[in-house]
């Protein structure tokens, strides 16, 4: 049981980290609470399924096309829907909720509400320390680690990353220094949805694919982001691991744990917030007056 907890917690934590870091990034740069974030994750899973099952493109190619397509689509959505109402925070909020609902309904309409099974990308398992880990789960871990390294590289070793961090720190000053804030926000949207889409593609063979698959990770992701501190990437990563392990422990060690796993994760978030209102690693944003 201990090994199960260790492996499941790590795998789920990896997926959550991909989602939470993307969300955190976009909140930090553009102050958008993007409810549709996990809806893009669902879209990517569906795109992957369609490409894989309907056209014989092979795993790698269909995964790449799905991720790229969803990322482009998200930039389009941002330009058409979010940017015109950027000044009105409330309008942005429900615009993202409406987008998520639209995606859900379109998928429900075109694929039906039943679960779709995707054939496993990799068969077989490897034994580490007496636990058998299916290759598929190992793939999730590897991809998550690679994507995290990629994000770290982009943010801390490129000029774009410098611009993104500067904009997140102070939008107006970054604008005055000659950065194109709109373009930086767009690039951030692309990176953040890229992470979500990658997560959607790698988990599609393990989890079920259905039009409502965005709701449960949405809530967990929000809990992680708040727990770690809004806009803090380190906080999101650590929060994701905490929540991943807490969920695994609840499911394996508590009776009726499957029902309670969400509740326990959220309870942990509430407790952390009570002790530290800005989350574990959050910088208390100075009062925006």
């Amino acid at each position, binding site marked *: 049981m201990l090994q199960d907890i260790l492996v499941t917690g790590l795998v789920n934590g990896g997926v959550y980290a991909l989602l939470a870091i993307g969300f955190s990034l976009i909140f930090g740069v553009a102050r958008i609470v993007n409810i549709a974030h996990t809806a893009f994750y669902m879209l990517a899973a569906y795109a992957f399924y369609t490409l894989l099952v309907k056209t014989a493109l092979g795993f790698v190619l269909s995964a790449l096309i799905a991720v790229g397509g969803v990322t482009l689509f998200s930039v389009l959505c941002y330009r058409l829907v979010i940017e015109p109402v950027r000044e009105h925070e409330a*309008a942005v909020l429900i*615009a993202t909720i409406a987008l998520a609902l*639209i995606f859900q309904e379109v998928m429900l309409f075109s694929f039906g509400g039943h679960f779709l099974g995707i054939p496993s990308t990799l068969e077989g398992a490897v034994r580490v320390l007496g636990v058998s880990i299916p290759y598929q789960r190992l793939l999730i871990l590897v991809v998550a680690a690679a994507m995290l390294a990629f994000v770290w590289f982009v943010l801390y070793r490129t000029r774009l990353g410098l611009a993104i961090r500067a904009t997140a720190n102070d939008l107006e000053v970054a604008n005055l220094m000659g950065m194109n804030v709109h373009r930086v926000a767009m690039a951030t949207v692309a990176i953040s949805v890229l992470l979500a889409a990658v997560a959607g593609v790698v988990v599609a063979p393990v989890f079920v694919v259905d039009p409502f698959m965005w709701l449960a990770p949405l809530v967990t992701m929000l809990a992680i*982001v708040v727990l770690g501190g809004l806009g803090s990437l380190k906080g999101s990563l650590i929060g994701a691991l905490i929540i991943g392990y807490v969920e695994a422990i609840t499911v394996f060690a508590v009776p009726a744990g499957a029902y309670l796993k969400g*509740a326990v994760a959220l309870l942990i978030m509430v407790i952390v*917030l009570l002790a530290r209102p800005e989350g574990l690693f959050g910088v208390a944003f100075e009062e925006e007056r």
Partner: protein
Amino acid sequence: MYWLRRGWAELRNEVFVLPSRTLVLIWVLALLLLPLVYGDAYVMRILTMTCIFAMFAASWDLLAGYTGQVNFGHALFFGAGAYASALLSLKLGLSPWLTIWAGAAVALLFGFGVGYLCLRLRGSYLSLATLAFPLIALGLLFAFPDFSGGELGISGVRRLALTPTANYYLAVVSMLVIVFGLWLLADSKFGIVLHAIRDDEVAARASGINTLRYKMTVFAIAGAAAGFAGALFAHYLRVAGPSTLEVALSFQVVIWGIFGGLATIYGPVVAVFLLYPLTEWLGSFRAFGELRLLIFAVIVLLVLLFMPRGLTPFVRDKMETQCPRCKQRNGFWRKICRLCGAALQAQVSGAKRLVGHQ
């Protein structure tokens, strides 16, 4: 006779001068008189549900619009009211007339609890943290199905009234009382303090306002109103199920509130009265049944692209202009202010405005 004349004068001088007030009067009269003219059970049913959700949305607006505590988990209060009322009426056999108030009281306590927990949070942290509370409650309900009925909820709750018309009047009257009550509250000195807390909490505290107490009170009031709506909902549908606590309902009320216009009280009510019957009506067509939510979301998105501040502020600004001197509102047809006589000139545009400033 004197009172009749007095009433007519009041009506002419205070209500008919503004299109928005006239519309409110027409709306109230239409709601009250509708069953006498057209008593179709299906229409009664939809309007009853609309009234219940209107109360719910108005209570959210007091919390989110006025006080700035954008609550993503408002369904907690609705569900608490529904479950408390249903459990009390079923397990203890109390009269529904009593348990509705008990449901509201339980929701008030929940409001105090959530308010207390969220006192130190602000902005997006508060929104995302409040999202958690109904889900924690939902997890607990599913973990103890003997007590809560699990997925199916508690069914067989006693009705408040037997005929559709009686139920309708019950919902309409309680909706009018609660909505106008919240409106009065929001227009009073209390409401001004709430505006101050939303705009700048530090400054409000510096002016000697005990913001913590105000925030707790608003949470409790909004919770009680939402719980009352939830209890009515449970007794009307005769079931209190997990759907009253779901994320979908919490998001729904956020959509209603922002679509109608924040910090207005009447905005969310207008939004519910437009959107809820619309979605139900669309759902009644077989071809549209599946597309109901899609059409709903597209409408909300399109309306917001053109009216980012919400529907009612946009429409109200078209119908009325504000007097530049005394800040009173006037009908669009007036050239001078009805109270102070200042000229209400049309909007000066382009280069002329710049010249005027120099």
